[in-house]
């Protein structure tokens, strides 16, 4: 560590940011400097994943788009607080989960959303004629919010428990317990 860095507190804190050749790091730095194109690249690289998880949470196309939009706006606002302590996509997922949980807590659209879902369900049946998937998606929607989020992140999106713990700010053991409960409830729901 050079003497110069020790004397300048700002430089010391900057040292925490990895000097990486990863283009994502460059895009983030450029976005912070005001580059719209750089943020667009970040958006393009992650929007599908974010939308996918939002759709799984809500089973509502429009609501998923709305949440995706909110995730990226929030990500922009908080971009200066991203400390490279986890993958950027993990960080975005944590924003998505928080957006969803906040939405479920505050919005009265839950019931409306579920009604809308049943309409969409008919649409799926017409299009795909796949009753099992519809039942499964329907059963997922009936899970408690936290358990649903863990199930989707783990079993659908493929995150590991330690990543889910980071995303949802819970302990790894709690994540495992949520998953176990979610799978049990899902099976019981599918039996009906």
């Amino acid at each position, binding site marked *: 560590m050079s003497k110069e860095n020790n004397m300048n507190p700002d430089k010391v804190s900057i040292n925490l940011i990895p000097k990486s050749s990863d283009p994502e790091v460059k895009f983030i730095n450029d976005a912070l400097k005001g580059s719209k194109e750089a943020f667009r690249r970040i958006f393009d690289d992650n929007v599908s994943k974010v939308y996918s998880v939002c759709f799984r949470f809500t089973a509502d196309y429009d609501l998923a788009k709305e949440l995706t939009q909110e995730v990226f706006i929030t990500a922009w606002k908080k971009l200066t607080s991203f400390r490279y302590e986890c993958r950027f996509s993990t960080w975005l997922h944590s924003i998505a989960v928080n957006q969803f949980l906040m939405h479920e807590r505050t919005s009265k659209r839950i019931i409306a959303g579920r009604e809308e879902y049943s309409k969409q369900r008919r649409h799926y049946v017409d299009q795909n004629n796949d009753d099992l998937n519809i039942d499964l998606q329907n059963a997922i929607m009936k899970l408690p919010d936290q358990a649903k989020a863990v199930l989707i992140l783990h079993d659908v999106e493929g995150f590991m428990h330690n990543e889910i713990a980071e995303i949802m700010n819970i302990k790894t053991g709690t994540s495992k317990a949520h998953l176990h409960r979610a799978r049990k409830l*899902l099976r019981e729901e599918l039996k009906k």
Partner: protein
Amino acid sequence: MNEEINKENICGEIELLIDEQIEGMISLSDKQKMEIHIADCPGCKEYLKKTLETLYNLDKLNSKYGSLQKSDQENIWENVSDKINFSEHSDKIISQNENTANTYTIFRKKYVWISGIAAVIAILFIFYAVKNWDFRQGNDSLQYSFGLPTYWKVVSVKGSPKINDMNMVSSDSIKEGQWITTDSVSIAELIIADIGKVTIEPDSKVILVKGADSTRQIFVEYGMVNTETQNGDNRAFKVGIPSAVAENKGGSYSLKIDKNGDGMIVVKSGKVDVLSTNKNAIVPAGNIVMTKNGLGVGTPFNEQSSPGFKNALFNYDFGNCNDACMNIIIDNAKMTDAVSLINILNGSKAVNETKEEIYNKVANLIPPRAPVHKDSLEFFDEKELEIWIDDIQKKIETDLKGSLERLEENLSKYKDDMEKFYFDSAKFYFLPENFDFTEIPEVPEVPEDYENYKFKYSSDSAYFNSEEMKKEMEKMKKEIDESNKFNKEELDREMEQMDKELKELNKKLKENIYFNNEEFKKEMERVKEEMKRSVKEYKFNEKYKFNEDDNKDNTDYNSKDTENSDIPEAPKEPDIPPDGENK
């Protein structure tokens, strides 16, 4: 009732193990426990089957729905970009810089005279400093200067570390007498100018103190710190702990102190001298030393030392076990324990005879550069001991390097074998042997696109990374072979048994038929005999009746019929033994 509760508890535990198995993170013992339980528990078997089905369906679900159209993507981007001010972050930075710049401009324009006063103060300050400068303190940190309080830099790495129980900013400073505390999630980094840094782990308290020789050092009251220092200009960095001081000139080590003040120092690189009132310990890389509050420092030992050796060493240092423990130590000492033995040689606790024995033992493993006479052992120079320790370390490192290279070669070979074997038999791996795959029509085989499949079994998972892989593989092969062998032998035995049974059955059947035939013949003969007798009797009666009715006196006693005819006897009972006798 209690049994039911116990069963529920066990099944609950097994279900969690099944989850871990699917995750690919189960230990070997847990896996065996799970498989044994599943074999006898239909409920858990069902749980496994249903979970696999659900996962398979969830995986299909993921690939079918939830994709975003390009036009939707564009719409979302437009909405996002409309609501974002892209110069927001850069403006803040510029604004901060401008504020700073404006402050300096005002300062220059309106308060120029202040510079003059400042210059005078500076000159006085330098004069005072030079006058009071103690040049003997040259070995101290560069941050200590001019007899004024020195500030060391502290950086908050994670959470909210505190300085003097007040929240610190992301980059702060600490001076003599102040302390840093971290809670269960906080981490702080203390920068030591030109030497290195100390990472203060969660739940720790570190105080910046003035050492006995007027140099600044840190004191770890409790918790854990990791130090990383460079061997720049041969200055020692000191860390005080209850009852000892750790000192090193480059390298890294971890130090942990519990709430009772007892501690442990683990040296990762370089060498650490731990000084205490009872003795000094020389701890090279790969060694660990314990400290006891009020007693001082113990004897260092290698990470690979045997538990018996460590136990004896601990009792020798901090218990009342002297000769008995020393015998165990000497008897159990291996190459890697040479550092411990030299440290005992360096201490004053061991008697001369013991020191001689220790010297001979270590010298047999690695001789010192200059042999020492037994009478001089008491006056062994500490520097010579350090050189001896360095030689031992080099030898251990060379041996270790060789072993590691061999291990890597073997591991890479096993990894290839295991991966091949694993994917060939993936389904047998996570299901019990007697699990019936035909019961799961949805998952008949490992899917062709198993790489995208939810259960990923990569060789870098925590489970497949060691010797355990090889053992597990060999065990599985053996089990399969034994199972095949057993099945064949059992089948042969069963076939033979069946053959015998069939033969016996045939024999019995024949005997039975023969017996029945004999019986039948006898019965027929008996019936025939009876019939003959009956006919005779009938004829006789008829004849006798006729003569009696027509002419009782003309009885022809000489007739042919009467010559041979006797009075018929009553028919005999069949010659069949009574039931009771048969039985």
